[in-house]
Every structure is written in structure tokens, then in C-alpha cells.
């Protein structure tokens, strides 16, 4: 075979290969520019973060507004300190409530934002004062069971 034929086939092969890589990146991986947008960091303290993990989404009204950037433990106050990277496109009042929620019974754990009424907005390095810890299912069940048991003894 001639050299030109090799060149043609190899060129087609390379184009097909890179198209496949692009397909994997965009159609399968759902790559978007979201990662490269600017963010600002705020901190929130929780008594218990349950199953919250790094990179967990932060949602307000169900829309993705940021991600969990860092989780560490404050050894003085015995609380979990969660750093959230929020998209600069979205601004929230200072008295926003951050609560740890679960989508469905077994779904992923995320942080939900409920906006408050303060006129000032959260800025880089701020602390979210109003937080709501994760609901631990075992505690909920045991509370319910002890409550039932207590009711039973009262009746007698």
C-alpha cells in the first residue's frame, strides 16, 4: 500500500479516537463549565453532619448553588466545621439557614439553604449562624420507641 493510504487511514483513526474521547467527556461525563466558575467560601458549624461527604452539593430550592469544600472537626467546641464553596452568581442573606438533608430515604446527603430576610449578604469567610444538624435515623427510632414505652407505663 502507498504511504498516502496509510496516512488517510491513520488520520481517520485519530479523528475517530478523539471524537470518542469527546463523546465520553461530554455525553457520558456531562462535562460543563460549572467547575471553572468563581466561588466564595463560607463556614457552617453543625452538631452532627451525619453522612455528609466532600463535594456534596449545596442546594437552595432544589437548585445546585455550591459544593462542600472541606470538613473538619473543631476540638474546642466539639462541632463539625464545614466549608462551603458557593457560586458567586448566587448571593444569600446573612441569616440564611443551612440544614443537612437527605434526598429520599437512602439518597445522597446534601446541604439545603433556606434564605432569611437580612439585608446584608454572605461574603467570603463568613460564618453561617443558623444551622440544623442531620437527622440520625437510629435516634429518631429509639426516641419513638422509648416514647411509646413510656406511654404504656403511664396507662397502667
Amino acid at each position, binding site marked *: 500500500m502507498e504511504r498516502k493510504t496509510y496516512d488517510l487511514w491513520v488520520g481517520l*483513526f485519530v479523528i475517530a479516537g478523539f471524537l470518542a*474521547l469527546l463523546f465520553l467527556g461530554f455525553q457520558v461525563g456531562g462535562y460543563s463549565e460549572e467547575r471553572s466558575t468563581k466561588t466564595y467560601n463560607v463556614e457552617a458549624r453543625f452538631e452532627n453532619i451525619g453522612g455528609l461527604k466532600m463535594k456534596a452539593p449545596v442546594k437552595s430550592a432544589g437548585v445546585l448553588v455550591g459544593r462542600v469544600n472541606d470538613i473538619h472537626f473543631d476540638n474546642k467546641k466539639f462541632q463539625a466545621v464545614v466549608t462551603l464553596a458557593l457560586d458567586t452568581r448566587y448571593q444569600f442573606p446573612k441569616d440564611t439557614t443551612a440544614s443537612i438533608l437527605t434526598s429520599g430515604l437512602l439518597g445522597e446527603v446534601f446541604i439545603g439553604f433556606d434564605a432569611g430576610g437580612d439585608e446584608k449578604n454572605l461574603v467570603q469567610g463568613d460564618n453561617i449562624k443558623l444551622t440544623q444538624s442531620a437527622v440520625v435515623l437510629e435516634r429518631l427510632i429509639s426516641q419513638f420507641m422509648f416514647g411509646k414505652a413510656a406511654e404504656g407505663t403511664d396507662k397502667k
Partner: protein
Amino acid sequence: MQKILNIIRGLGNRTIEFLWRFGAMVRFSGLILLHSGMSFRRISLTIREIYFSGVMSLVIIMVSGLFVGMVLALQGYETLQNYGAQEQMGVLTALSLVRELGPVVSALLFASRAGSAITAGIGLMKATEQLKAMDMMAVDPIARVVAPRFWAGVFSMPLLAALFSFSGILGGYLVAVLLTGIDAGVFWGNMQAAVDVRYDIVNGVIKSIIFGIAISIIATYEGFDAEPTAEGVSAATTRTVVTAALSVLALDFMLTAFMLRTAP
């Protein structure tokens, strides 16, 4: 007593032989890197080899990818529907293909389709004393014959793995959407939510590049090292396929252990 000594001697002999071959292979890969200038200066040499190892493997890679994806989707449906989670079929096929099956199965196919051909080709050149003739004409056989084949393998492998994953996901799509009637939007949407570009796709590409390096070194070394007889070449070809397949699987385990996101 003598028997036990013989067994121990045999073990020692095998160990030394293995270490010797491994060391020779490392030195050989150093030589390839040292003499690979020509494969870039005369790029047509490398392009010819990409044609023989990459383009000629396309059909087997694409067809096997299609079937692997279709089988994955069928088997996944069988199990997932027990939990009412058929919607996750896209995630199952995409993640298993992009992370593991794409790089590994295409590397195994590449080793048996292209690796064996490289070994047989170089071994035959050695048996017919073409390599010696080149040496006599002051043409370095490593630069002229081995390095272009090595670089062609390293370049082709990630593209072939990507094409394998692509046709596999296409096969999964065919089974999921056309056969079992899952909504196409749900199929792609769940997949995009679960597959991470950095951790899943880029890691798969890194894996396939490393497999390409390993297979190319093994195939060219076994060919270059083959005994210059018909039996020697056939034994070398067998060794290539066995060694390449084993090292791909062992390397895959090590790479996966490093790449998985176990740390928070």
C-alpha cells in the same frame, strides 16, 4: 535429599531467569527511549506502524465493545429490576466500561491482535537475519524497527480504549432504550450525574496509556529476544500474549488501588 536440592535449584534457576529477563526488559526500554529520535523525525515510519497495530485492531475492538456493552446492560437489567432501579442501567454500563472494561478488555484484545503481530514480525526479521543486515549497513535496528512500533502502540492504545468504551455505551443504549424500554433522557441523565470526568474518564485514559506502554515493551522485547528459528518465533509470540495479559491484569489492580477515591 538430592531430590529436594534439585527442587530448590530449579526454583533458584527460575527466579534468576525471571529477574534476568526483567532486567533485560528494563534495559531494552531504556534503549528504545534513547533511540526513539528517528521515529519522530521520520514520522511516516511510526504512522505505518499505527496503521498496522491501531487501525487494523479497530474492527475487533469496536465489535467486542458493542457486544460487551449489550451484555452488561442485559445482565444489569436482570439484577437491577429486582430493586426497581432499572434507571441506573446507564450508570452501571458507563462506569464499568469507562473505569475498567474499556481499558482492560481493549488492552487484552490489543495484546493478542497487535502485540502478537509485532513479536512475530520482529522475530521473523531476526530469524531471516534482516536485523543483522541493518546493523551491517549502520542502521540501528532498535531505532528503525523497534521504536516506531513501540510509539505506535503507546499512541494507539488510549484511542482504542476510548473507542471500545464508546461502542460499549452505544450497545448499552441500544439494549436499555430499544429492548427494555428505559427512557433515553433518564439513561443519559443518570449517567452524566454519576460519571465524573476527572476521576472516571481521565483515570481510564491514564490506565490505557500505561497498558499501551507495557504491552508495547513486552511485544517488542519478546520479538527482539526471540530465538532466530521458526519454533523460537512461535514460542516468543505465545510468551508475548501470556506475559502481556498477566501484566495488564496485575497493573490494573495496582492502578485501581491507587485511583479509587477511598480517602475523603
